[in-house]
């Protein structure tokens, strides 16, 4: 096996191990219902994380994800109450997401300001914009939402592949194609690997950076649409700190935060591991709030250590 697939393989192995452990501990855990839930309940995190994967692969970071999800949600809800069709607002919001991301990318490259800070300002700005749109949580009543939520595929057993999960899997496929089979994708890796070299090798840094953050904006706006349809409402505080989950999903999926190394497919499993950790804690159910927080840290730690152990032991055998 090529060594670049090692982290991904280890991530998958640990995911399966955790899933099996959960199954042995809790009744009804080992089922397609739980698996389907994990896919659906994390679909927007994973969608946003796919965008974040590109950004992180390029050596950047995008903190505006959570706010974007909230902002898209409130806009969809408010426009719904004004009689817009959700698909129309979705299209509008995705265009907005792309433009907003592109603007962030432009500021990052043209002004030479660090992505962390530009997107942190983006986080404040979009969250503030949510409050401008509405302070209340607003339901989306359009019947399209019911149609959307009823589109699901039955899995063997009790489980469902819900519409959100389907959208997520399609975006994942798209992400994999972009990352691994386009010039743009290769340029992303190049910039993340060594920006100065990439520039000298003829990569147009400005264009690529703008496109990377535009793609990030696209995915986070899409995540916002999925979130809004999933909860059929908009809420100005929705998605707070989701950017951290998204980044964690990317990194758990084997992508290096320093850029240049990683795979989009890993992000799927990274996101599912986060979901699995939460689900395990809920199934346990006997912890108080304090222990719930502590144990998510412990499980995260356990995962990371197990992952490192697997990667290094594979490595020794491989060479």
């Amino acid at each position, binding site marked *: 096996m090529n060594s670049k697939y090692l982290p991904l393989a280890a991530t998958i192995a640990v995911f399966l191990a955790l899933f099996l452990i959960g199954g042995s501990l809790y009744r009804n855990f080992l089922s397609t219902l739980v698996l389907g839930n994990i896919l659906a309940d994390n679909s927007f995190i994973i969608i946003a994380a796919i965008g974040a994967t590109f950004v992180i692969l390029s050596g950047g970071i995008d903190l505006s994800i959570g706010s974007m999800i909230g902002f898209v949600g409130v806009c969809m809800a408010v426009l719904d109450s004004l009689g817009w069709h959700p698909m129309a607002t979705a299209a509008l919001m995705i265009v907005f997401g792309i433009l907003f991301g592109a603007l962030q990318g432009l500021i990052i490259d043209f002004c030479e300001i660090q992505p962390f800070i530009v997107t942190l300002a983006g986080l404040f700005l979009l969250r503030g914009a949510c409050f401008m749109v509405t302070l209340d949580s607003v339901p989306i009543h359009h019947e399209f939402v019911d149609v959307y939520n009823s589109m699901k595929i039955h899995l063997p057993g009790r489980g469902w592949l819900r519409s959100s999960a389907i959208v997520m899997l399609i975006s994942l496929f798209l992400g994999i194609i972009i990352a691994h*089979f386009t*010039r743009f994708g290769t340029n992303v890796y190049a910039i993340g*690997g060594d920006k100065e*070299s990439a520039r000298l090798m*003829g*990569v147009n840094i400005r264009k690529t950076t703008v496109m990377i953050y535009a793609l990030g904006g696209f995915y986070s706006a899409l995540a916002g649409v999925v979130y809004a349809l999933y909860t059929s409402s908009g809420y100005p505080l929705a998605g707070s700190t989701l950017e951290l989950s998204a980044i964690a999903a990317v990194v758990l999926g084997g992508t290096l935060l320093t850029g240049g190394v990683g795979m989009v497919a890993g992000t799927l499993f990274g996101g599912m591991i986060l979901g699995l950790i939460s689900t395990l804690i809920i199934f346990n159910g006997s912890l108080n709030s304090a222990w719930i927080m502590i144990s998510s840290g412990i499980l995260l730690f356990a995962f990371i250590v197990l992952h490192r152990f697997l990667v290094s032991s594979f490595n020794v055998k491989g060479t």
Partner: protein
Amino acid sequence: MNMNASTPRVEMRGICKAFPGVLALDNVNLTLMPGEVHALLGENGAGKSTLIKILTGASTKDSGEILLEGKPLSFQTTGEAQALGISTVYQEVNLIPAMSVTKNLTLEKTVGRFGMISWRKAREMAREKLRRLKLDIDIEQAVGSYSVAVQQLVAIARALDDDTRVLVLDEPTASLDAQETAALFDIIRDLKSRGIAVVFITHFLDQVYEISDRISVLRNGNLVGTGLAKDITRNELISMMIGRELGEVEATFAAKSNATKGEPVLVAEGLGRKRTLKPFNLTLRAGEAVGLSGLLGSGRTELTKILFGAIRHDSGTLSVGGKSVGRSSPRYSINSGIAFCPEDRKAEGLVGELSIRENIVMSMQAKRGWLSRVPRRDQERLAEEMIKALAIATPNADKPVGQLSGGNQQKVVLARALASQPSILLLDEPTRGIDVGAHAEIITLIRELCQKGLALLVASSELDEIIASSDRVAVLRDREKIGEIEGADINREKIIQMIAGDDGH
């Protein structure tokens, strides 16, 4: 030679470029004819790399103009320059270490349609490019896992495009040995015959005369002169470059040292590491210079790193100054008086953002520990001394090292090792990219240190350097030490014979 083609391929006129505190280029003109190999020479920091960075879109000029086949050029990115047929190999190997060889070779080159990439075609293209350089490596491995020399070859392969009109090579041969250099020159001759203009920067004068048609010399950002290679003698060339004669220094270079061999200070017995280097014995004595010779990938770098503790050995014993070392590490080695110059100055040598002074005092400071800081005044004095001794071209010692020219960066790596006042010095390709004048001076300096009792190990792909500087030569082949030669036996033929492996084993 194809010198009568009327329009120049490229004309650079009145190029000026200033950096904070330095005028890197002052009104420089350069003309490239189709089908010529144009050597660009000059001391470290003369402005060669800056000039070609401006030509290739990697850097912007302050004033002046560039014409490509008579048409004025204005581009802002290297991508645009590449599209116009200007291919470049920059001085610091510019590849993406974490990406595979294939990807590095095909980045921003068309393979596939509609922005999609056909990896099958990409691999074909990569193999084809490497074949021309007779390089046979696994193209799916990350470029960073190969030695600097292989990376250099990959960078060259990348620049060889079918639609190239101008090929710019900035010290492509600095870490290559004779065999690879010959392969490169074959290709250059072929390109030349197809009317491509080649700019060739190097510090090896032999190579200049071997391959180039015309020569331009830069000094302190000014163009000193341009002329046909056959009209300029070696001595003229050197005095054009450094502004004075070199005869005296060159004489020292040639003279054999007569230092008396001292006590063994470093003894390796059966030292080795699985999959890296077969166990070897090696003794370094005070006052003796040992050369390390071998082909590309023969394990010179590994051997020095194992001695230094940067790669941990898994067999054999190592003793330094009579004490045996259990687990060696760079820190331990530094503390026991060993200093090491790594081969890859960008990745392993320098901290680019820190100043020259800080880089120079680093090892010395590490040796003293964090509590007893070298006083600022001493730091400055030391830095000034080193800048003077090694002729580092810089306005002051507080310039970030990353902004120095390649050769001057290399000198800083050396300066750091020397500043820690080692009793054992391990050098891996120490003079990569250093100009002739400084080269000779550095050899003299090290020779003096040897005389004062320093034990020296030099790994180099430059046979002449090895022959000139060593009292004893260890030869490596295929990650194994195959022998040592001493005294009068040290000559080109003997070493080549051993390296090549036809010495009757």
